[in-house]
């Protein structure tokens, strides 16, 4: 069965520090991978996605993620975190089901940014 694991429930970093959020997936075929961000009281915003091609993908807000098939991972990175990056981050794997598209989400990682 398809699943996504985000090992870190909560991460705290200082503003200006680098960030890496981990994501591991389980899926038998070629995965389609996404990172979404949810600010407090807000909806889900797509940060970036991997469908095929270059395994290092660039997203909005200075984020990037690297797909590593051998490790079944799709970790999210940012070289320098800003206070406004404090939010909940969700990794997801997408796959077709019954003629539709389905996202399976990880349980999220809450990011706290210290001044």
């Amino acid at each position, binding site marked *: 069965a398809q699943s996504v694991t985000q090992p870190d429930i909560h991460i705290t970093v200082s503003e200006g520090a680098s960030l890496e959020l981990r994501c591991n997936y389980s899926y038998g075929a070629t995965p389609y991978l996404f990172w979404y961000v949810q600010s407090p009281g807000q909806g889900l915003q797509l940060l970036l*996605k991997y469908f095929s091609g270059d395994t290092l993908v660039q997203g909005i807000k200075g984020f990037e993620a690297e797909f590593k098939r051998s490790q079944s991972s799709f970790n999210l990175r940012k070289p320098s975190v800003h206070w406004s990056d404090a939010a909940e981050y969700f990794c997801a794997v997408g796959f077709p089901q019954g003629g539709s598209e389905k996202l399976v989400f990880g349980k*999220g990682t809450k990011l706290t940014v210290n001044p």
Partner: protein
Amino acid sequence: DTAVSQTPKYLVTQMGNDKSIKCEQNLGHDTMYWYKQDSKKFLKIMFSYNNKELIINETVPNRFSPKSPDKAHLNLHINSLELGDSAVYFCASSRLQGISGNTIYFGEGSWLTVV
């Protein structure tokens, strides 16, 4: 213009009531979804519709009935509300069915509280 809009954003209601959440997308997408985010922030798909046809139904209680009058709208009606229905409900949409890797765009969410 908001791509995926849902109303109401906040809803507080008593147990046993019937309520509806409306969703509209102006992206010209063929597929629409409802996702539920529980109190632990876990996101899970409930339904997907393609051109008004139900495609995915993820073992959701019969009290939940999606209705799609046209492909731009997918409303969620909930009968006999229970305390456990308190959650954030996200509407979403994507392009063509059956094509893997479609980006799914989410609405802002509807915060339902059952008291």
